[in-house]
């Protein structure tokens, strides 16, 4: 079944004709423990350049922990994380961000009192080079730089169709829009790999459709590799190229949505098993 992972560096062509590149990230035998609790047990999988890769599983399966390992927030006790063909040492989250990995959070983590524009601008922080002093007096390089960053931010605002809330404090926005702003902030970092932690959680059908379209458009327009965690099976199967299924910290399936759906273990994990 895992034919694709075996020629992982080669890349493949999706059903809808997109060319997916070679491996950009590889998780090798990851085990993560919190004291005696094993959150992730010996999991390996890879993420190819340009694909939409989903991690799914029931509650408590270890999905968010996995994402936190990818983002460098958790350091696994065993196993290796390879990024861009190099083994990644233990890093601080900001160092990981500098590598080109950006993320959104399950519980929105925006600056509520700041406007949409300013929130997205914070996503450019890793790209700002002017010193604190020249930023304070806003002269020369700092002013030029801000203009460039503002342009990039405006492109994102246009892309996500949130012009009308440009100056609105984020705390006043409805949930679905806050999620969109958070996506905007992640995009502002121009990531190579974008991690989305339950991007559709708590959304209604229409908001989910909008968000799905934005995720697909980000992938299509900027060629961004996307790894996402999601509960909603329908959405996952619709938008992702390959899916990793987790249950109780173990990997129980890996492949295209169709392959995963046909996998008996996956069906058991989601629908339960009758014991007779």
């Amino acid at each position, binding site marked *: 079944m895992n034919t694709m992972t075996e020629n992982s560096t080669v890349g493949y062509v999706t059903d*809808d004709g*997109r060319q997916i590149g070679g491996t950009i990230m590889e998780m090798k035998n990851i085990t993560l423990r919190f004291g005696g609790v094993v959150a992730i047990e010996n999991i390996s999988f890879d993420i190819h350049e340009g694909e939409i890769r989903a991690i799914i599983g029931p509650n408590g399966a270890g999905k968010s922990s996995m994402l936190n390992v990818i983002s460098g927030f958790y350091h696994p006790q065993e196993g290796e994380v390879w990024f861009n063909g190099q083994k990644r040492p233990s890093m601080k989250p900001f160092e990981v961000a500098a590598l080109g990995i950006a993320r959104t959070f399950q519980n929105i983590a925006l600056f509520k009192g700041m406007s949409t524009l300013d929130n997205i601008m914070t996503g450019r922080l890793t790209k700002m080079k002017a010193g604190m002093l020249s930023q304070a007096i806003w002269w020369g390089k700092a002013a030029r730089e801000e203009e460039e960053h503002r342009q990039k931010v*405006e492109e994102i605002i*246009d*892309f996500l169709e949130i*012009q*009308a809330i440009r100056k609105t404090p984020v705390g006043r926005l409805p949930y679905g829009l806050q999620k969109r702003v958070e996506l905007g902030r992640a995009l502002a970092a121009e990531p190579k790999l974008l991690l989305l932690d339950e991007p559709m959680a708590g959304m209604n059908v229409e908001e989910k459709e909008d968000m799905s*379209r934005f995720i697909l*458009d980000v992938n299509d*327009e900027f060629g961004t590799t996307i790894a996402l965690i999601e509960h909603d099976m329908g959405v996952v199967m619709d938008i992702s190229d390959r899916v990793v299924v987790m249950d109780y910290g173990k990997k129980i399936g890996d492949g295209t949505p169709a392959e995963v759906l046909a996998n008996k273990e996956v069906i058991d994990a989601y629908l339960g098993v009758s014991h007779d």
Partner: protein
Amino acid sequence: MAQSDAVLDSIPALLARNAATFGDKAAYREKEYGIWQRWNWSDVAGEVEALALGLLNLGIHEGDFVAIIGRNRPYFYWTMVAVQSVGAIPVPLYQDANAEEMAYVLGHCGARFIVVEDQEQVDKVIEVQDQLHQFEHMIYVDPRGLRKYDHRRLHQFSHIQEQGRAAREEFLPELQARTERLNMDSTCVMLYTSGTTGKPKGVVLSNRNVIVTSKNSCEFDHLQPGEEVLAYLPMAWVGDFIFSIGQAYWTGFCVNCPESADTMMTDLREIGPTYYFAPPRFFEGQLTSVMIRMEDAGRFKKWLFRKYMDVARKVGPAILDGKEVSFGDRLSYMLGNLFVYGPLKNTLGLSRVRVGYTAGEAIGPELFEFYRSIGINLKQLYGQTEATVFITQQPDGEVRADTVGVPSPDVEIKIEDNGEIYYRSPGVFEEYYQNPESTADTKDAEGWVATGDAGFIEKSSGHLRIIDRAKDVGKMADGSMFAPKFVENKLKFYPDILESVVFGADREYCVAFINIDLTAVGNWAERNNVAYASYQELAGHPEVYNTIQAHIEEVNKSVAQDEMLSGCQVHRFLILHKELDADDGEMTRTRKVRRKIVGEKFNDLLDALYGGKSEIYTETEVTYEDGRKGSISATLEIRDVSVVPVNTKVAAE
């Protein structure tokens, strides 16, 4: 504006004149990436030429129809002019039309080329392309999400322009020859009427229609090249075509396009248009939001607002009309302007409005007076697509809420015996495309056009007053006159009531369906701690029913004053469980109620209203925005309303 009319016989000719006369004056602005981008008249001439050459490169013929589907953006206005300059005919469509509606219009005009905004519109056209035999090429402005599409018949707007620029040498003589062949008789544009009844009809307007009408109307209001307008009304609507193309190209004023539909209010404030058009519904929405915010304001601010609004009501309109006002009143009005009206106008984005128009529906007298009293020169006009907009309009200083003004320059008006209004003017349309029967029904051999509206000319002032649609003016069972619109308009003037539909033709008495205004009633509910989960629940609330009942009783009193129409008092009513919606076919895309369709669809409710029941259970099919269907059910209360007895109405007071 000294110019010889001889050569200005097409829109492309006007563009050439503008590029030569005031080439570095702003012609278009559009807010994009948070900044107002600007194009001068000479830039526009270049953009239009590049696109026209690109279209020639694609093989466009003279007389081809080119459909244009998108929101107000400079690119689509350029497309219209580019299409004209290659001798083809632009056909703007409503961008919110669904695929089926679009298929009908695209098939009817046989569009070979379609210019659209984005993926959404591309998808719609692809969905119906099998029904479109003449369709060949589609051009889109926004490439987002379209990269993977089959590009054999799909092109990006900027690429077409690039190809045009590259092939300039080759095609320029052909373009010039075609543009020169245009004259006053060639077709300027084809606009589909929204069709209150039946299928939409394609109204063919010639250059003469558009240019003469634009010239006359610009002179009527002394429009200058320095005017600023905000283009936000649908491009498929004749009004937008005249304001944003006809008048803009005639005088050379600047057309500003909002960043997106949602940012329209912000963009309005930033631009501060000097010439402005909005339907009554829009002014109503603005006033409602002002009033709601005033309810939440502090006590001092409320006091200040009330005090100076009283002053404004008393002397504002007189000051605006240049009439004599005492020094004391003038002084309080000036203070009011400083404290209240000025900031308010600024908030509404109407500080600079010199000429404002409203049309399409009757406007509530109080609403109308409100805007005039704070110093906004809001006027009414009466028009139709078939007339290239203008039939009558109000001159400065003669503005009233209950008339639609005097005949526009060069327009003749006559009233037939049945009350129907006819007009004849240089703006009268050429024909309905491929529909000679309808053309003959509407326009007679002498050029008189039936408006379908009933009205009369007021003897004292010479102003036209509209009663209702001529075909809607009917008889009740006892033979008295039935004019539903007359009653509905009175009802709609209450902020709580969004829509009303009155029935009563050939019946003993009148009944009404009511739609509440969710903003106004929702705010009331919030202030009075009334909990509700949906429109339906709020609409069925007993307190809401009481309020609406009180409104209807007021209206009945006012209707009873009018001898001819006193039979139209509403005897029973119910509040509908859903908002009337264009997606369900209950309204036109310009949000006019389709009375007949509503009557048929809610037949069970009508039976209950006339059957004396006090409540009715009903199920209704609804269409969501993406075209899926669902159904909602509800039990609706029906109420009796007290009416003023017709024959003894004076005694009853």
